[in-house]
């Protein structure tokens, strides 16, 4: 799993580095754990923050992800792809959170409150600089979690469709179909919100 330096500030692990990292983790080497943390913690947090949309919850779940790595490091398989492993754990935590949140959303709907109420600190309040970025973030946030996670892994984390399918437990075709639907939802959502000339893809 690679990512350009501009997106996270970390340089990606080469295949050799990645297998050394897993070997170090299995051997209980604290330096390997620190290296893994330096490589992946921003990306894991970014994924969780976009999935749960709440800073404090995202921090707790990021910590839980790393605690699970600490607990399972000795039992990792030699061929474990650490990034995919971490994203799988993070994704499972997010799913549990969303299941729990269903109760809250039902209560909001019963009270006829806004469909998406932003009365909490969002991790994106300070980062999304332009109006378009804010609109894109909101559109992303409004996607159902099963579509949002596909977009985050493939588009933002730049995983290959195969890797993302592995993390999400989907077949490649199902993953591509879900990505296509997510894209259609994003376009439809932006059409409602924006002047046609401003829709991404049609802008000069």
């Amino acid at each position: 799993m690679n990512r350009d330096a501009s997106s996270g500030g970390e340089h990606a692990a080469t295949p050799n580095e990645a297998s050394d990292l897993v070997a170090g983790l299995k051997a209980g080497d604290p330096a390997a754990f620190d290296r893994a943390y330096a490589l992946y913690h921003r990306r894991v947090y970014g994924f969780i923050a976009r999935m749960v949309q709440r800073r404090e919850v995202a921090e707790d779940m990021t910590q839980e992800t790393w605690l699970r790595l600490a607990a399972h490091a000795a039992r990792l398989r030699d061929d474990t792809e650490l990034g995919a492993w971490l994203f799988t754990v993070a994704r499972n935590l997010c799913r549990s959170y969303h299941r729990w949140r269903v109760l809250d959303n039902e209560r909001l709907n019963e009270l006829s409150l806004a469909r998406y109420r932003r009365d909490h600190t969002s991790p994106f309040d300070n980062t999304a600089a332009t109006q378009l970025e804010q609109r894109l973030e909101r559109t992303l946030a409004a996607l159902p979690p099963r579509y949002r996670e596909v977009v985050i892994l493939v588009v933002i984390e730049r995983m290959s469709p195969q890797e993302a399918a592995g993390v999400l437990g989907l077949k490649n075709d199902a993953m591509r179909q879900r990505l296509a639907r997510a894209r259609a939802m994003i376009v439809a959502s932006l059409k409602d919100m924006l002047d046609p000339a401003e829709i991404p893809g049609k802008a000069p």
Partner: protein
Amino acid sequence: MSHDPTQDRDIDDSDLFARISRLPAPELDPAAAEGIRRRAGAAFLRHAERANHPWLDRLMRWYRRVEPVMVTAVAASYLFWGFTSAMALYQ
């Protein structure tokens, strides 16, 4: 394994995903990041120590399992001893 979704025409043929991919990442507060690293690192060392000494891990697990029983048994024996002593004094 690098993958650029904007180059994959099967998935996307506009710059919509390219724009999304350039969205700034949410930033984890440095103090929170350091706190998580410290706590998870400490947990990692604890687990690694146990993995290096499996007998110690087994012993600790056994102790955690029997501890409530032992505490209850000791407390019950003290109660029994106190009760029988009190009865002996009373008679």
